[in-house]
């Protein structure tokens, strides 16, 4: 979309500001309305996109923001009314909401920051050195997990972790005690599932970034006697810092909104032990029919996402 926007400076060679600038060769005489008209005409090609955005993106978002301040219910109520900040006060007074926030943070940090990100970097680094067949095979496996639809991946991992599932069979074969992982460590089980599913993305980003590092630099460091860790710490990481920031941001935003995977594996249970914010929101909206409250929670989730994004953007900016 953005590629189609005509850049004001290249469109007709003149600066885009109106009024105070000398008229271009084609306008002939300085008329007060000409600049404005020209600006409007230039905006015309963009307007279809703008109309669509307003209609289908900004509209629903504004409506959601409005609903968050009402007590709208899906059923059980004849009329909804404006309740101000009541939904937000209710959220912060609700233990289940705070529990969901905490679990969302655990899930995001464990599966996205520590899991997908680190593992993706490690895989990318190892694959740089690997032979071609190994590279193809590993890449194929990792990317398959990524390509699978969320729900299918959820069922596969449910079968893996469930009592008497694949993991237990392996443990029994090794003569280790088995247990129901979805029951004893639900948030870790779903975090692992998310790592399994989402690592491919990080791997691709980091593979691309590592390929960009000129080999002379690495070789020079090697000649100077820098070991593997020193090279990683002083050369590789600083050079791919931008990619790390981008990758962290995209991964985090994606992980914050994971729903299907957790829903299929545990439905947020047992109890509320794996109920992250999206699942809490779903329960409030569609099981308890409290659309207004759930929308308020959605806005809060948006805030959490923006906070993470701000931190990463900072990280990106300070580099230069």
């Amino acid at each position: 979309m953005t590629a189609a926007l005509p850049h004001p400076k290249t469109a007709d060679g003149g600066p885009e500001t109106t009024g105070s600038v000398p008229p271009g060769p084609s306008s002939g005489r300085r008329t007060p309305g000409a600049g404005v008209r020209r600006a409007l005409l230039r905006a015309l090609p963009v307007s279809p996109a703008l109309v669509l955005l307003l209609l289908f993106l900004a509209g629903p978002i504004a409506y959601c923001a409005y609903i968050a301040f009402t007590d709208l219910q899906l059923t059980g109520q004849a009329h909804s009314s404006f309740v101000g900040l009541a939904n937000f006060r209710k959220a912060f007074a609700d233990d289940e909401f705070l529990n969901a926030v905490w679990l969302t943070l655990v899930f995001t940090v464990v599966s996205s920051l520590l899991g997908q990100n680190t593992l993706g970097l490690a895989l990318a680094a190892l694959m740089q050195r690997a032979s071609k067949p190994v590279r193809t095979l590993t890449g194929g496996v990792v990317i398959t997990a990524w390509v699978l639809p969320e729900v299918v991946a959820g069922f596969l991992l449910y079968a893996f972790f469930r009592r008497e599932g694949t993991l237990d069979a392996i443990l029994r074969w090794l003569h280790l005690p088995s247990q129901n992982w979805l029951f004893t460590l639900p948030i870790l089980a779903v975090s692992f599932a998310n790592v399994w599913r989402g690592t491919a993305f990080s791997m691709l980003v980091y593979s691309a970034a590592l390929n960009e590092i000129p080999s002379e630099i690495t070789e020079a460091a090697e000649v100077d006697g820098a070991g593997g860790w020193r090279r990683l710490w002083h050369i590789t990481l600083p050079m791919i810092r931008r990619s790390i920031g981008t990758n962290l941001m995209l991964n985090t935003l994606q992980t914050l909104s994971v729903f299907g995977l957790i829903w299929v594996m545990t439905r947020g249970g047992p109890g509320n032990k794996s109920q992250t914010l999206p699942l809490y929101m779903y329960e409030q909206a569609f099981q308890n029919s409290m659309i207004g409250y759930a929308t308020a929670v959605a806005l809060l989730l948006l805030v959490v996402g923006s906070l993470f994004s701000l931190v990463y953007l900072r990280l990106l900016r300070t580099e230069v």
Partner: protein
Amino acid sequence: MPVRPTAAFPLLPVLLTTALAATALTACGSGSGSSPDTVKVSFKQSTDNSIKVMDGYLADIKKQFEKKYPGKKVELIPIKAPDSEYYTKVQQMLRSPKTAPDLVYEDTFLINSDITSGYLKPLDPYLAKWPDWKQFIDTAKNAAKGEDGRTYGVPDGTDTRGLWFDKGIFKKAGLPATWQPKSWDDVLSAARAIKKKVPGVTPINVYTGKPAGEAATMQTFEMLLYGTGDGTSDPLYDRASKKWIAGSQGFRDALSFVHTVYREKLGPDVSTALDPNIQTIVAGDLLPKGKLGIALDGSWLPQAWLKGSGHEWHEWSSELGLAPMPTQHGQAPGKVSMSGGWTWAVPAKAGNPDLAFDFIRTMQTKANAEKWYVANSGIAVRKDVASDPAYARAQPGIKFFTDLVASTHYRPAYPAYPKVSTAIQEAMEGVTTGDTSVDEAASGYDDALKDATDDQVVRK
């Protein structure tokens, strides 16, 4: 690159987009407009592709209807979703006249909530002129009544609940094949006997916790709760003051029962009990494979054992016994059951309500009603069908569960009920895992109840 801002060029996309947006919007508006000769019937299609009971039945009624009312058409709108998502989809359809069908299949669980929302149309004027309405039993009629006293749905059957037990396991445990427990203690001591003498099987299953959802509340908790006290008043909701009951002894006793089952390891392993698929595990695995002694469960179980269902089990009627769930100490009336079921209702925003009621009348002729009860293992709510020997013979167990209708209770399915139900499941889950004591769980419920009902609570 110079761009010539001629009028026609940039205007074209704008016009196109406007036209596109306009068509998109009007399509939502007028595409589903009702024809006065078509009745749109939305129904719940099974999520299991091999089960086509409802589809087949409605196709048959459609044929009958179109023959009886020449020139009229029936459009069937299947909604394929599990229960909880079905409610949501229907409620969204009912909100707008553009999407509201003429007839909708409503669970009694949520019908009062949808009545309060103004989604449904009162049927009293139609019912007054319909002679068959007299055949419906009163408890079922009440299930579709709003707080304003008007009736909003025609029930197409009900369900009841009781104890299913494995005669083979009972024999090994030295228990009689004609087992009829008289009190909760009888049930527990049978389970203890099984645990002692028949290792490797689960003595008893009672659904519990949030993963089992409404099954935990209704099949287990309310089957216990409504068997406490004197059996005449509702232990969950005080209809006189229109308030929910907190802090009752019956509530703690019912929780204690669940606590005992899981503390003494008479039930399934806790992690299995809290598996979201527990209902499938019980009906598809534990019972047919002879791995469960007693199941407190609903009348519809044989549906899972029909031909082509994946767990075909013809012999269940000789291998399983049935007993009513007793009251707590065997006090009158001695047995207890809970009922729910579904009704056909006409949306407030329906285009052709008259035609929709005609469709209900066609579905609810005696012959068609009977066909439906038999097809879906339902329990008759029509007196003429219930007393028909052909109906009682149609399926083993049907007489047992129909007889329970006399001592059954309907839930106080008012708008706050779904939230109350979740609060009950949370209390059950606490005592099941042993994380909370019975008293802690009960007081936790009292707090949650205040929240769920906007403080419409009375202590008893």
